[in-house]
């Protein structure tokens, strides 16, 4: 387990992702009454982490000129939403959905911090310091 400490890396990536998602949701909520604003979200952590996992060192195509098939946009995981639920002024933010997502982001952040803390405690006790 503590040969390369991937649990810390994963917990760190998860906390970073939750923080980024929180910032995106805060933008949506702040612009909840701006005409023409389209709500955005990040893709979920599982798929975001899988695409940037250093353990899977397969080559990826990030530009149309690359050899490996179709380019997958990895640098910008932001997804815009469809405007099908948009209000007449073109705003597609739903405060209820944003609250749900914000709670989700908070829980993900808490979870990652709990994992980090628990791993840190195990590491500490393995070093014999309490």
């Amino acid at each position, binding site marked *: 387990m503590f040969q390369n400490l991937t649990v810390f890396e994963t917990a760190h990536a998860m906390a970073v992702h939750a*923080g980024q998602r*929180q910032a995106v949701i805060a933008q949506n909520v702040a*612009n*909840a009454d*701006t005409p023409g604003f389209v709500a955005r979200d990040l893709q979920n952590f599982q798929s975001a982490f899988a695409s940037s996992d250093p353990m899977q060192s397969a080559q990826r195509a990030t530009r149309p000129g690359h050899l490996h098939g179709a380019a997958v946009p990895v640098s910008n995981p932001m997804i815009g939403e469809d405007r099908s639920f948009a209000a007449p002024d073109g705003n597609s933010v739903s405060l209820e959905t944003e609250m749900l997502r*914000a709670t989700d982001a908070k829980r993900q*952040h808490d979870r990652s911090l709990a994992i980090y803390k628990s791993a840190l405690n195990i590491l500490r006790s393995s070093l014999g310091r309490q």
Partner: protein
Amino acid sequence: MNEFSKALDVSTSGLKAQSSRLRHLSENISNADTPGYRRKTIPFRTEFDAGGGVAKVEVGRVSLDDRPLERVFDPSHPLADGTGHYEGSNVDLLIELADAREAQRSYEANLKMFEQARQMSSGLMQLLRR
């Protein structure tokens, strides 16, 4: 600029925008009986902050509603014309109150996002304590 300060920044811009909206609404309501008063409206627009790359909300210039003023029949009024009418304001209290309620809801949502970003940030700080 880390993600939490981005989130706090965006939420603050939302709070400012909503409170300035509420201020103009209360101006309208208090001048509902002022003869010749035209209701003020303020537009919201998204402002991309180049430094942080976040979509803040900004309040645009105040504009006056150019709906026709209400004509009130009161021959004893000092401003009454030959037919006994004078021009009142074009404020509709029902619209103003509904708008004020919406502003309050959005303000609360922004406040909740601010509080949550703060909680997540302080959870991160808890990791440093023992």
